[in-house]
């Protein structure tokens, strides 16, 4: 009886809620968010030495943030010239009407200070102009020379606060810098910030290097190099510069990649025209064979939880993408479309696999779900391959070669990035030609 009464009451009670008109909003604006980034203001200019002053941090720090946000394609940073309020005042308490006037929805302000120990203190605030309130505020300390990293960390905070997703600006990219004619190409390992700044070469270019990959903590790099004409997988510590060969294989090893915990390297080992997938524990040097198939199995990549491996194989007659458990069992073909599939990479989010596809002489970069459904081709070109994920699984970086003359003269290779929606394709500036990019994880993590 009680139950009936309760339900009756509930029914009557809920019927009252019909009095409110309910409207479902299922569509919105996918335009970039209009954002204003005010110049930062200097709190104690007397403490700024000439050297620090010459860095022009009050302008350049916001400029780096602006570059990051603009490149993401999710923000549109309004021109500085349209800003009405002074940086100092806008940091203390912005006049929201002024910012609304130039159609900004979000505003970033900041303050710079050199503290007693000579460190740079950067304070930033993120304002919701429309709701007229502060939504994020943070102070960061660092040596003045590492101001770029501060700008990247601030960009990450802004990105995360407004998109709900972790940023990817405080990261680095390792790639193969190429120079010289096509027949006698010099290839060096190079590393740079995600925005192309702080470019450095890690090897001299005596040996050919290919497919560098970051370890999850960003301190180690594994790559393939031809030393004395024998292609082998190497390990390089970025901080110390020490290089070593991975494993003692009686043949060619290639296509290396770290496991998500950073303890193992997974790679292909080729012997007598057959190649299989192996893992090697970095500490114990124990080697394990994962696949044993007469076909060519290569390009292995772990899922972020380490339980699965995606790789490509020509066991069906054509190169296709397969997944298996990390012990090599349960092999499943997941690519079903026409054409050849290669270089699969599992997204750090775990939901997608990026790949290169060759069909009718055209190269595509695409993504599919981990069961092979929902294949989406993001970009098509004359020659492009080797996608690598941003740490938040939102952007892919890859390299693209343009068609040259018959002997390859005039062709160039450059790095490009594209959003997984297929929009916002941007070229990443490098001092030389570049190929085989690999994105690091967040450095501040």
């Amino acid at each position: 009886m009680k139950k009936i009464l309760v339900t009756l009451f509930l029914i009557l009670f809920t019927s009252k809620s019909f009095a409110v008109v309910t409207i479902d909003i299922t569509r919105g604006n996918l335009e970039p968010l209009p954002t204003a980034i005010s110049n930062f203001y200097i709190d104690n200019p007397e403490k700024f030495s000439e050297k620090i002053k010459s860095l022009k941090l009050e302008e350049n720090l916001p400029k780096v943030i602006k570059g990051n946000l603009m490149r993401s394609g999710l923000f549109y940073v309004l021109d500085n010239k349209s800003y009405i309020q002074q940086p100092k005042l806008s940091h203390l308490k912005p006049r929201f009407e002024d910012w609304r006037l130039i159609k900004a929805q979000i505003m970033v302000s900041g303050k710079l200070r050199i503290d007693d120990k000579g460190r740079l203190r950067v304070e930033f605030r993120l304002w919701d102009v429309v709701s007229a309130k502060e939504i994020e505020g943070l102070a960061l300390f660092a040596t003045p020379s590492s101001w770029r990293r501060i700008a990247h960390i601030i960009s990450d905070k802004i990105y995360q606060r407004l998109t709900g997703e972790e940023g990817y600006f405080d990261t680095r990219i390792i790639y193969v810098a190429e120079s010289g004619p096509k027949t006698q190409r010099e290839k060096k390992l190079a590393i740079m910030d995600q925005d192309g700044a702080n470019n450095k070469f890690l090897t001299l270019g005596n040996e050919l290097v290919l497919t560098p990959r970051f370890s999850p903590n960003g301190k180690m790099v594994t790559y393939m190099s031809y030393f004395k004409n024998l292609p082998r997988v190497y390990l390089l510590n970025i901080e110390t510069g020490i290089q070593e060969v991975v494993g003692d294989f009686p043949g060619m090893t290639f296509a290396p990649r770290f496991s998500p915990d950073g303890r193992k390297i997974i790679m292909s080992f080729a012997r007598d025209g057959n190649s299989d997938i192996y893992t090697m524990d970095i500490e114990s040097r124990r080697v394990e064979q994962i696949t044993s198939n007469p076909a060519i199995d290569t390009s292995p990549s772990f899922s972020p939880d380490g339980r699965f491996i995606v790789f490509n194989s020509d066991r069906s007659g054509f190169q296709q993408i397969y997944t298996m458990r990390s012990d090599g069992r349960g092999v499943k073909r997941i690519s079903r479309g026409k054409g050849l599939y290669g270089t699969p990479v599992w997204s750090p989010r775990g939901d997608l696999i990026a790949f290169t596809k060759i069909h009718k002489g055209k190269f595509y970069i695409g993504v599919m779900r981990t069961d092979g459904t929902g294949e989406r081709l993001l970009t098509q070109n004359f020659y492009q391959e080797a996608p690598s994920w941003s740490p938040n699984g939102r952007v892919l970086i890859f390299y693209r070669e343009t068609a040259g003359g018959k002997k390859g003269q005039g062709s160039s290779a450059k790095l490009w990035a594209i959003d997984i929606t297929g929009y916002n394709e941007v070229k990443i500036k490098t001092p030389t030609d570049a190929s085989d990019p690999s994105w690091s994880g967040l450095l501040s993590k």
Partner: protein
Amino acid sequence: MYRSLSLSILFHAGIFAITFFTLPFIVKKPIDVPPIISIDLIQISEKTALPFAPKAREIIEKIKEEKERVVTKQAPPKIVKKEKQDAVPMPDQIKKKKPKETDKQNPEEVKDEIRQSSEFEKKELFDPNKIAALIDKSKEETADIQQKQSLEITQDQDSTVSLDKGLTITQEDAIKAQIFKCWNIPLGLPYDEDLTVRVRLKLNKDGSIMSSEILDHVRMNRPGQGFYKVLAESALRAVRLCNPLKMPATGHDKWKDLQLNFDAKEMLRG
């Protein structure tokens, strides 16, 4: 050799025969010409606000009568009657009966509305200096009416009221279109999770927002619900950017309480 060839031919012929007799498209039939259907173009609002329409018509007619009494020259000829004729007759006639019954049950309510709207019409006729006074009056009156309603609502009445509430599809679409433009969807949200933000609005007569409130605001500040917070804030920004909303000129009672459910799933899935 010949044996296998003949076998092959036989099987092929068999397959052809099967497809010929079973697949429908091979058999050509004369195309049936569909009967001609005459189509009347009607205002969708008539269809979508049906429970309200018959009442409204009565009200409008009464207003019309009053108008004729006051000044016949200025009142523009109403096309109300014509609309009646053009409308699809069947559902209208059926639904006419129902509201009449309810009218008898609660006649007060209708009267209120009549008074209100007639006041409105009269306003145009008086000299402009008195408008301010009139507006004030109308405010008082509506306040009175609201109070009365809130005091007298019984369960039966409530259900009829709920029928009268609700905007027409075109009115709803007009509101949607405004919000769509104002809402910048945060693109980083996960599309697999259930993320719907419900915002309750109270609107003034001119469509400006009196108050806005997130219904599940507890969830906003729960740890691990960062996505929800981001979405909720974007929804609030959208509402504020759109302030004031362009609302229908009449029927403030119907849309003064508005609930918007912001759901980005469709857009994020692409």
